[in-house]
């Protein structure tokens, strides 16, 4: 199942590499990634798409929250599978 994560990240040297590196090290593929500035120049917003089961999602969320630069992570999972996707938000 596909999951979309929203990550708020401090703009520190190497912060993006640490997020991407976490996925590589935990053997989870990133299907899509966009990085955008926010109104606060010290903070970036990452939107990231991965696929995996609920256990994979839960573990990667918890591991992301261990990264010092990560301010917040939430999962916006595309639920469903019968052609009627619904948007459900977890934290």
């Amino acid at each position, binding site marked *: 199942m596909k999951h979309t994560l929203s990550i708020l990240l*401090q703009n520190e*040297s*190497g912060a993006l590499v640490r997020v991407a590196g976490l996925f590589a090290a935990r053997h989870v593929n990133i299907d899509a990634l966009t990085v955008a500035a926010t109104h606060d120049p010290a903070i970036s917003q990452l939107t990231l798409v991965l696929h995996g089961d609920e256990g994979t999602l839960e*573990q990667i969320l*918890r591991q992301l*929250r*261990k990264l*010092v630069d990560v301010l917040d992570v939430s999962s916006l999972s595309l639920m469903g599978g019968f052609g009627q996707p619904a948007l459900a938000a977890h934290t």
Partner: protein
Amino acid sequence: MSGADIVVQVLADEGTKVLFGYSGGAILPVYDAIFRYNALHRDAGGRDRLALVVPANEQGAGFMASGFARASGGVGVAVVTSGPGATNLVTPIRDALADSIPMVAICGQVPTAALGSDAFQEAPVANIMGACAKHVFLVTDATQLEATLRTAFELARSGRPGPVVVDIPKNVQNAVQPFDGERHLPIPGYRRRLEAVEHARLDDADCERLLDALAQARRPLIYAGGGVVASGAAPALRAFSRAFGLPAVTSLMGLGVMDTRDPLALHMLGMHGTAYANYAVEDCDFLLVLGARFDDRVAGVPDKFAPRAKFIAQIDIDPAEVGKVKAVDWAHVGQLGASLERIAHYARSRGVRLQLDDWHAHLAALKRAHAMNYDRASPLIQPQAVIEAINRQTQGRAIIATGVGQHQMWSAQFFDFAEPRHWLTSGSMGTMGFGLPAAIGAQFAHPGAMVIDVDGDGSIRMNVGELETVATYGLPLKIVLLNNHGDGMVRQWQKLFFKGRYSATDKNLHTKDFVRAAQADGIAWARRLERKEDLEATVAEFLAVAGPAFLEVVVDPDAGVYPMVGPGASYAQMITGDFIPSRAAPPPVDAEASTMHMF
């Protein structure tokens, strides 16, 4: 103050007494600042306030800092130069992360203007270490140096401890800045999550649910890990275990959290755990997991781990460890000691009492029937006998460091540990070469303590240059080399799972004269023990040496580590070997099937 002076001042302010490191071009300003600091600051004995210990290799510095941290509970500090200095530190940093050891590593870096230019001794340390450390800082703004260093110590110590790397370009070390004395980085995300975990309290309903399950249990068991050591919760664990009469098994990293001679202590569980600890895990109907993480050396087959446990409860400081390997019925993310005290207090107020006489009798019978044993009748010196001989003298009070392999497992099995932080081993990473430098670090943490490195011929060779460091600093370290002329653990696996094809292990470790190597490095008391009848007297003489001493013991090259729960096997399939009675004859090892799970 220059950046280099700021580095040294923050180290001193954070309580650092000993630094482990090797100098080089990009870290010269910091080393100069250490020299100048020590010229001005002497302790009561006229010694350097910031003692600097120089290893043979930066990997040695990293493991010394790790050994210092493991033995003392403080933050171990390593200071190295850029490029190869920093990359030589990668293994100890990853090792410290895997075992949750607090360290701060300070690396010199090429000047900011040269970053990315493939400069001399340049390496992308933030990238490399980013995957290995709890956190990495590359300090490109000199005004942030002081706050960054102080925050590095805070990160290393707090929550689940770990190593933090601070990469400092040479121009930042030379930049003059005002020194504030207080500044930290904000790290708001980390702080918010840390505060939530540190203030998490078990409410009455949490306690009630746990105690209901415990009250129904007839065979409850505690599985305690390295988190109990890291959080200083061993006294709380012992009180909790005593209050309820709860027996405990410990992981490799948790050895010493219970006094191993306590009747309620069942020693180590897992791949090479005691048979009675593993049978207790098989038999328990309730499992309380404290600061442990169901590592694959413990729960190789998670579904078959503790198969009769109707209720598994887990307390850990790291939310990511809850449910990572094995689903649990009850979990609390928070401080271990405070949580155990809260549960015990609630239980007292409720008058919870357990009737565990049958369970205690069952475990006592398991301990008697399946006690640790080995080939005592062999004419060859058995490695386990060497450990028993040392243990008879040290009585669980020595600090024991090891390399990785068979000697490590025999040490875990046959030494007693009266207290935590007496057992220093590379548990998760399993890094050969860890023992000697870790023991050096521990000896600096406890100059008056009996520190013993029990090493293997394969492991000690990996950092054998540090023998000279022992002599240089006149450390009273005792080094026991159990020489079986080869990589014994690899041979054991090749024998069991590769039909005796001794690839690589047939090629090395046959020629080195370790005694002459120790003597050449300045260790005057260096002997080889080959006759079984000399064991007791030689060990006594060796341990009584006032200064450094090196004892090579030529041991049975075919001695194996048993019990063994093979890779991909459950505890019910444990092989107890020829000298420990098994509860049931284990099924034959299926070599082809085992290799599928093999790592």
